[in-house]
């Protein structure tokens, strides 16, 4: 089966600015794909180009087998989009909003209402289905936005920062909801976010872009393994400059920095905690704990973005 999204050498220029610069990607069907990068990296431009809201300067795109922009109308029957705004009508109540979008996607009123009620129930909005959207909280509006994108049972959903503006608890709850709904419906999700724990929690594979260029691609685990440098936190007192020099002299030590608990030591190879302990004690430091930090995806992402700055 062909991929849900195929992008070859996509370039998007706006005057002097190049928002997307030679991007090539493949997104397999039935996966959650994280599209990451710092602000202004070209994420939203890529999404808008893929759904036919922005014209590419050059390159080739296929979404669910449809050429973009040649077959955008047919493609839109199977694709939905959630941008930073939830895209729902404030004057209408939550249920009517979903019914309206059901009609836009050619659903019968009966089917639209039934599906809308089921989604509102799943997302914990059943008690406020008759409340005007303008009176809902930011988190509730976001959830309604998610319900809107899933209403027509699309094959592909673009979610552009779905948890932006939510507090940690609401964001975690919404993440759980998205994970559950994606699992149940088996759809493909193209997700952009600045919340890296969201990526680790939801994404099967990830692409990182910066200044419109692809700089890394793989699963979150692969990227974490490929890019992150091991670090060790040393909880210690009486750390003299001589102790720091002794640590710096150890093989494989890339950098040493003080923090309020003691030291952070970054390694370019597998850390040797015993040698580190000996060097510090030898320099009269009082070491109470040495904690190995495995880095993880967040550090890998930051390293990737910094390396290419």
């Amino acid at each position, binding site marked *: 089966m062909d991929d849900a999204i195929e992008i070859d050498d996509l370039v998007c220029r706006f005057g002097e600015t190049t928002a997307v610069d030679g991007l090539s990607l493949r997104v397999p069907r039935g996966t959650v794909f994280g599209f990451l990068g710092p602000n202004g990296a070209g994420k939203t431009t890529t999404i*808008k180009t893929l*759904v*036919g*809201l922005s*014209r590419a300067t050059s390159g080739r795109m296929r979404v669910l087998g449809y050429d*973009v*922009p040649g077959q*955008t*109308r047919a493609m*839109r*029957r199977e*694709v*939905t*989009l959630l*941008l*930073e*705004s*939830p*895209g*729902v*009508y*404030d*004057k*209408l109540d939550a249920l*009517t909003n979903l019914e*309206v*979008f059901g*009609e*836009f*996607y*050619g659903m019968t009123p009966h089917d639209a209402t039934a599906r809308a009620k089921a989604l509102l129930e799943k997302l914990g909005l059943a008690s406020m289905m008759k409340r*005007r959207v303008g009176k809902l909280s930011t988190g509730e509006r976001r959830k309604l936005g998610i319900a*809107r994108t899933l209403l027509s049972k699309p094959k592909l959903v673009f979610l552009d920062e779905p948890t932006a503006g939510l507090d940690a608890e609401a964001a975690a709850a919404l993440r759980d909801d998205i994970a559950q709904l994606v699992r149940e419906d088996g759809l493909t999700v193209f997700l952009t976010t600045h919340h890296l724990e969201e990526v680790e929690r939801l994404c099967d594979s990830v692409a990182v872009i910066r200044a419109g260029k692809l700089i890394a691609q793989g699963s979150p685990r692969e990227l974490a393994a490929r890019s992150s440098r091991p670090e060790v936190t040393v909880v210690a007192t009486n750390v003299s400059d001589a102790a720091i020099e002794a640590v710096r002299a150890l093989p494989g030590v890339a950098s040493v920095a003080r923090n309020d608990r003691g030291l952070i030591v970054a390694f370019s190879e597998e850390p040797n905690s015993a040698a580190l302990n000996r060097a510090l004690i030898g320099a009269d430091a009082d070491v109470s704990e040495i904690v190995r930090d495995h880095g993880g995806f967040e550090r890998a992402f930051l390293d990737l973005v910094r390396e290419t700055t």
Partner: protein
Amino acid sequence: MIAIIRKDMREWFAGGATGRYGQYEFLIYIALFGIVFPIFFSLLGTEGPKSGASVSFSPFIGAFVPILLAIYTMADAFAGEKERGTLETLLVTPLSSSDIVVGKWLAGISYAAVIMVSTTVLSSIVSRVMGARSVDPRILAATVAIALLLAGLLGAIEIIISMRAPTVKSAVFALNLTFIIIVVGLSQLLLRTAKTIAVFLAPVLALGSTGLVALGAGVILLVLVSIALLLWIATQQLRGMRLE
């Protein structure tokens, strides 16, 4: 198209076209132009038995004032969706561009028509109750029809403006500006060529009633063709925005 009409009508009847008076907005307009104005004019003595006026003019106001409302609803068609962050969501739906444009135009006209007909009928009744002479229903029907045609024409222009305007206010401002330029331009033209116009009007006035009816039908046809052309232009613009 029906989906768009239903959506827009639901929004306006739920929250008002201007959003200032909530769900009761259309009732406020109907009460204002259908009841308050006729009573006010009668009490002022500008219409009613003591005014000396041959007919009541409140129904005509009731027919024409909602044109402004129609213009406002059309201004909201795209600029309003842009302001509220719902335009992109709408543009990526599988609805055709012509369905969106014509649906929004029909919804705006229908909303204005409900208010126009209600205010015209109500103000006729209230004026009559207050003692003014009644207006021939055929004249009132023709007035509402002309007002609707005018609302349709201005609304179609406003839809094109609304697509390019960043906000509803700027869309309304742009139409007002266009309107002022047209009115000032036409009035200057009329003043400068008054004699020529009289020469042109002479054969028109000599047409007789049948000829005048034919001329009126021609003008109506011209307005309808203009509306169709403007909506076609708007559809092409939207197709460009959606890369269709």
